[in-house]
C-alpha cells in the first residue's frame, strides 16, 4: 500500500487540534506555533501532491479506500482528481495564511486555533472525499467552528455578531436541508436496497445506467442547487454572505470566502452536474440568468458600500456568480474556467481579507472614508491590496484572468446575452476595485496611521504565500490548467450526452 498522503493531509489539522487541547491555555506561543506547524505541513504535503499529480494519467489519484459503514455502502474513500486537486492546494494555501493572519490573536488563542484547525480539516475532507457520505460529513463540519468563532472573535458592525452568526448558520443549513433531501433521493434511487452505495463513481455509474430518470433529475436538481447554491452565495440566496464576512474574524472570512463558497461550487459540479446532468441542463437557463443577475447586482451594491469587508463580501458574491455561470453553462470550456476561477478567486479573496484583517486588527477601522492614504506608511500592505485588487479585476498575468476568460469563451456562444452582461461587469469590477484602492491606499497621508507598523515577519506570510501562488499561476497557468484539464476531460462525454437535452426553454439550438 502506498503512503496515505491524503489521509495524512486530512489528519494533520485534526491531530494538531487534538494536541492543542492539552496545551495550557496561556501558552500562546506554543499554540500558534503548533497550528502553524500543522498548516505548513499540510501545505507542503498538498504542494507535493499537486506536483506529483500525474496529469497524463488523469482520473482519481492518491486513492485510499477502506470500507466504513457497510450497511449504508459508505467507504472511507479519499482521492483527488483534476478538479479537487487544485482546490486541495487552495485549502493548503489559505490554511496557512489564515493561521498567520490570526497570529496575534490575544483572546482565548487556544480555542481559536483549535476551531480554526477543525475548520480547515473539514474543508480538506470535503475536497478529498470520493464518497458522498464522507463529503457531507465534512461539508457541514464548518457549522460549529464558524459559529463560535464569529461569536467570540467576530466583530459587530451593521448587525450584532451574535445575530449574524446565527443567520449565517441557519441560512446555510436551511439550504443544505434541501440538498440533503436531494442526496437521500439520489442515494435511494441509484440502486435497490442492499446494493446501495455513496461512492461517487458508483453513483455516476448508476446515472450512466439510467437509474436516474429524466423527470427525477429535473425534480431533484433544484434541491441540490438550493443547498450548494446558497453556500455558493447564489443570488438571491446570498444574504448570509456579506454579513457573515463582515462579522467574522479575519481567518474565518478568508476561509469562508476562499474555501467555503468553493465548496458549494465544487459540490454543485461533483454532485449536481455530474450525477444529474439532465436536470442541470433543464434548469440551466434560469440559473445562468440568475447568476448573471447576481453578478451585476452585487457589483452594483459594492459601488454603494463603504465597509471594506462588505465590499469584498459583495464582490465575492459577484465573482461567485461568474463561477456559477461557468458551471451551469455546462460545457467543458466553461466548467474548466469555473474550476480554475474557484482557485483564483479563493486566493484573491483570501489575500484581500488577510490585508483587511491586518489593518483592522490594528486600527479597528475598516470603513473606507476612515482609512486613507495607507500607502505612505505601509508599502507591504499596499502591495498586498494592489495585488489582490488587480487580481480581482482580472488583470492578465495574475491568476484570475485566464479562468474568467475561459468562462467567457465557454459561455458566450451558449448564452450570449447573459455573457455580455457578465463581461460588462468587468468594467464595474475595475471601477469599484480602483475606487477602493484609490481611497484606501492613495491620496494625502494621514498622521494617525504613522504609528502603525507595516506588515513584517509573521504577518507577511499570507501576502508572500498567496502572492506567490497568485503571480505564479498567473504567469504559468499551465501548472494549474493541466491539472484541471485532466479533471474536466472525463466530463466531456457527460456534456456531449446532454448537449441536446431539453432545457426549460425547450431544446436549445445552435450550441457549439
Amino acid at each position: 500500500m502506498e503512503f496515505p498522503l491524503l489521509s495524512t493531509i486530512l489528519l494533520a489539522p485534526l491531530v494538531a487540534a487534538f494536541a492543542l487541547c492539552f496545551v495550557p491555555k496561556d501558552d500562546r506561543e506554543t499554540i500558534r506555533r503548533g497550528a502553524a506547524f500543522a498548516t505548513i505541513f499540510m501545505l507542503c504535503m498538498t504542494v507535493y501532491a499537486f506536483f506529483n499529480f500525474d496529469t497524463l494519467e488523469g482520473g482519481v489519484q492518491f486513492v485510499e479506500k477502506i470500507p466504513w459503514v457497510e450497511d449504508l455502502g459508505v467507504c472511507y474513500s479519499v482521492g483527488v482528481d483534476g478538479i479537487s486537486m487544485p482546490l486541495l492546494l487552495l485549502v493548503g494555501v489559505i490554511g496557512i495564511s489564515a493561521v498567520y493572519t490570526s497570529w496575534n490573536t490575544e483572546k482565548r488563542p487556544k480555542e481559536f486555533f483549535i476551531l480554526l484547525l477543525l475548520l480547515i480539516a473539514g474543508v480538506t475532507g470535503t475536497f478529498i472525499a470520493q464518497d458522498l457520505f464522507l463529503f457531507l460529513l465534512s461539508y457541514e463540519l464548518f457549522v460549529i467552528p464558524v459559529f463560535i468563532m464569529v461569536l467570540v472573535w467576530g466583530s459587530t458592525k451593521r448587525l450584532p455578531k451574535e445575530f449574524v452568526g446565527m443567520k449565517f448558520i441557519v441560512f446555510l443549513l436551511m439550504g443544505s436541508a434541501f440538498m440533503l433531501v436531494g442526496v437521500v433521493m439520489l442515494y435511494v434511487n441509484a440502486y435497490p436496497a442492499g446494493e446501495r452505495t455513496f461512492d461517487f463513481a458508483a453513483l455516476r455509474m448508476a446515472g450512466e445506467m439510467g437509474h436516474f430518470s429524466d423527470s427525477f433529475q429535473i425534480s431533484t436538481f433544484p434541491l441540490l442547487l438550493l443547498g450548494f447554491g446558497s453556500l455558493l452565495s447564489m443570488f438571491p440566496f446570498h444574504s448570509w454572505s456579506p454579513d457573515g464576512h463582515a462579522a467574522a474574524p479575519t481567518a474565518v472570512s478568508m476561509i469562508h470566502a476562499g474555501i467555503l463558497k468553493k465548496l458549494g461550487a465544487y459540490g454543485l459540479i461533483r454532485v449536481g452536474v455530474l450525477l444529474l446532468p439532465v436536470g442541470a441542463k433543464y434548469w440551466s437557463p434560469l440559473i445562468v440568468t440568475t447568476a448573471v443577475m447576481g453578478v451585476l447586482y452585487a457589483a452594483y451594491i459594492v459601488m454603494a458600500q463603504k465597509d471594506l469587508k462588505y465590499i469584498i463580501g459583495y464582490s465575492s458574491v459577484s465573482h461567485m456568480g461568474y463561477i456559477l455561470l461557468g458551471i451551469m453553462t455546462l460545457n467543458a470550456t466553461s466548467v474548466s474556467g469555473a474550476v480554475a476561477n474557484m482557485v483564483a478567486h479563493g486566493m484573491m479573496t483570501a489575500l484581500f481579507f488577510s490585508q483587511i484583517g491586518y489593518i483592522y486588527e490594528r486600527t479597528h477601522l475598516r470603513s473606507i472614508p476612515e482609512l486613507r492614504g495607507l500607502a505612505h506608511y505601509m508599502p507591504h500592505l499596499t502591495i498586498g491590496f494592489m495585488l489582490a485588487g488587480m487580481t480581482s479585476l482580472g488583470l492578465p498575468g495574475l491568476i484570475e484572468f485566464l479562468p474568467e476568460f475561459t468562462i467567457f469563451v465557454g459561455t458566450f456562444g451558449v448564452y450570449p446575452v447573459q455573457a455580455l452582461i457578465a463581461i460588462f461587469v468587468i468594467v464595474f469590477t475595475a471601477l469599484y476595485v480602483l475606487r477602493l484602492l484609490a481611497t484606501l491606499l492613495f491620496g494625502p497621508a494621514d498622521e494617525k496611521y504613522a504609528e502603525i507598523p507595516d506588515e513584517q515577519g509573521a504577518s507577511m506570510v499570507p501576502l508572500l504565500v498567496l502572492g506567490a501562488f497568485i503571480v505564479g499561476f498567473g504567469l504559468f497557468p499551465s501548472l494549474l490548467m493541466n491539472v484541471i484539464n485532466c479533471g474536466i476531460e472525463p466530463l466531456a462525454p457527460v456534456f456531449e450526452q446532454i448537449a441536446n437535452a431539453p432545457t426549460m426553454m425547450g431544446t436549445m439550438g445552435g450550441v457549439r
Partner: protein
Amino acid sequence: MIDFALYHAWLIPLLPALAFVVIGLGTRQDKKTSAIIGITAISASFLLSLGVVGAVLTKRIVMADPFVMKTVWARIGGMELGMGALIDPLTAMMLVVVTTVALMVNIYSVGYMEHDSGMGRFFAFLSLFAASMLGLVISVNFLQMYIFWEGVGLCSYLLIGFYYYKISAREAAKKAFITTRIGDFGMLLGILLLQINFGTLDFIELKTLVPQYIWVSGTSFLTVIGLLLFIGPIGKSGQFPLHVWLPDAMEGPTPVSALIHAATMVVAGVYLIGRAYFIFAELPIVLNVIAWLGGFTAFFAATIAITQRPFKRILAYSTISQLGYMMLALGVGSLSASMFHLMTHAFFKALMFLCAGAVIEAMHEEADIFKMGGLRHRMPVTFKCMAIGVVAIAGLPPFAGFFSKDAILAAAAEVSFPLYLLASVTAFMTAFYMSRLLFVAFFGEVRDDCPAQETNAFMRWPLVVLAVLSVISGAWGHFAGFSDWVFYGVREEEAINWTIAGSSIVLSLIAMWWAYQIYVVKRWSSFQIARRLGVLYDLSYHAYYIDEIYAFFRELTVDKIGRLSLWIDTHIVDGIVHGLGRLTKGISVVLALPQNGDTQQYVAIFYTGVIALVAYSLFYAVKILSVTGGAF
C-alpha cells in the same frame, strides 16, 4: 548577432521584465542601482531590436510571411493558448520605436527623477511597462496581445498615479484604467467571438481562416467582431468618446507622458488594428467607421487643444488628434501611412513631451504656458528641440511629420474628399496650436520670477537624439522605402503628391504665421478673440464638458443604481430573510400559547387529538365497510 536577435526576440520583452522583478524585489531602495538595471535592460532590448530589424532586412522577412516562434502558454477546456514572437517588418519597426523612445526616456528619467525618493519604483514600473509594450508588439495572437494590452494599461495606471499622494494623480490613474477598461470590454468581446467562431486566436491561422470564412458566410458577422475589436483601440488610443482619460493622464511624471501617453502605449490601439488588418481590410463598414471616427477625433481634439493652457494638456490633445490621424489612415486603407505616422509621431511627440518635462521642471511645476515666456533665452537647447518638434508636427518639409502626414492626406484624398478636408483643417489647426504653444512659452520677454535654467545632461541628450530622429526619420523612412516593407495587400504608391503636399505646407505656414501674429506680434488680442467666440470658446476650453456629462451619467447609472441595489439588498432581500426569521419566531410564540400551564387544558387537547384519531379510524372503518359491504 542578427540570427541571435531574431531567434531570441522573446528576450526583448523579457529583459525589462526581469529588470522589473529585480528592482521590485531587491533594489527598490537604491536609486542608482535601479536606474542602472533599468537602463541596461532596455538598452539590451534596444540592441536586440536593432538586430531584429537587421534580420528582417537581411532575411527579407515580409509582411505576408512573418517569422513566428510560439509556445503553448496554457491549455484549458479545449482551447490552446499560445505565447510567442511574431516578427515581421511592422513588428521590427515597432520594436525599434518602442525601445528607442523607452531608452531615451529611461536616460532622461535619471535626471528628471533624481530628487524623487520613489525613483527605484519608477524604474521598476518603467521596465515593466517596456516589457508589456514589447510583449504586445511581438504578440502572435489576440490573447497575448490582450494580456500585454492590459499589462501596459496597468503600468499606465501605476505611473499616472505615481505621485500617489496627489489626489488628482490618483483620480487620473483611476480614470485612465476604467476608461480603457470599457474599451477592453469591447475588445474582449471581439476576441471571444473570434475564439468561439474560429477556435483560434492566432494571427497566422486567422489570416488563412478569415478569407475562407468570408467566402462562405459573408462579412456581416465579422463586421460585428471588427466593430467590437475596434472598441479596444478607441479606449486605448484615446479616440472619441473614450479619449477623456488621456489629458488627465498628464498627472503622471512627464517622462511617463512622453513614453506611454504619447509615443508608445497609446499607439497600441493603432498597432492592434494594423496587426489585425487582415480582418479589418475586408470589412468596408468597419473601415469607414474607423476612418470617420479617426477623422472626427483628430478634428475634435484639435479644437480643444487650441484653447488649452497647461503645456502638457495641449500636447495631450495633440496626441489624441494625431492618433485620430493614424486611425483615419487605417480607415482609408493605408496601413503604411498610418504606421509611418505612428513612427514619426512617436519620435517628435516624445521629444516634445520631454521638452515639456524639462520646461515644467525648470518652472518648478508650473504648467500654464501663459505663465511662461521667453524661455528660449534660458533654455536654448530645449527650445531648439521643441521648435523641431513643432515644425515636425506641423508638417513642414523636410521634417518627419511632413512625409507621414502627407502620406495620410494623400491616402484620404484618394478615398473620400470630405475626409481629406477634415484632415486638412485639422492639420491647419495643429500647426496653429502647436505654434501657439511654442510662441507663448518660449518667445516674448523673460518674466522676472522665472526660475528656469537649462537642464542637466541626462535630460538634455535624449532631447537631442530625439530631435535628430524627428528631423530625419521622415525623410529616411520615405526614401529608404518604409512602405516597401510595411504595407498590406498590394504595395502602395510612394511618390509624393505635390498638390496635396503643397496645399498642406501652405496651410501650415498660414497657421504658423497667424499664431505668430497673435501671440508674438500681438496684432490681435487673443482674449478678444476668445470673447468673440463666446460659447465656442467655452466649449473648447472645457473640452465640450464631456467629463461633466460622463460624471452625470456615471452618477446616474452607477452610483444611483448602486445605492438603490444596496437598499434593495438590505431592505428587501435581507428583509425577507430576517422577516422569515421573525415570522418563525412569531409562530413559535403563537403555537406555544396553549401551553399556558393549565393541566386540564392539556387534557382537553390530548382528548381532542384522540377524537381526531378516532374520527380517522371511523372514516377508515366506514371506507372498509363500504368496500367490503360489511362482510369480512
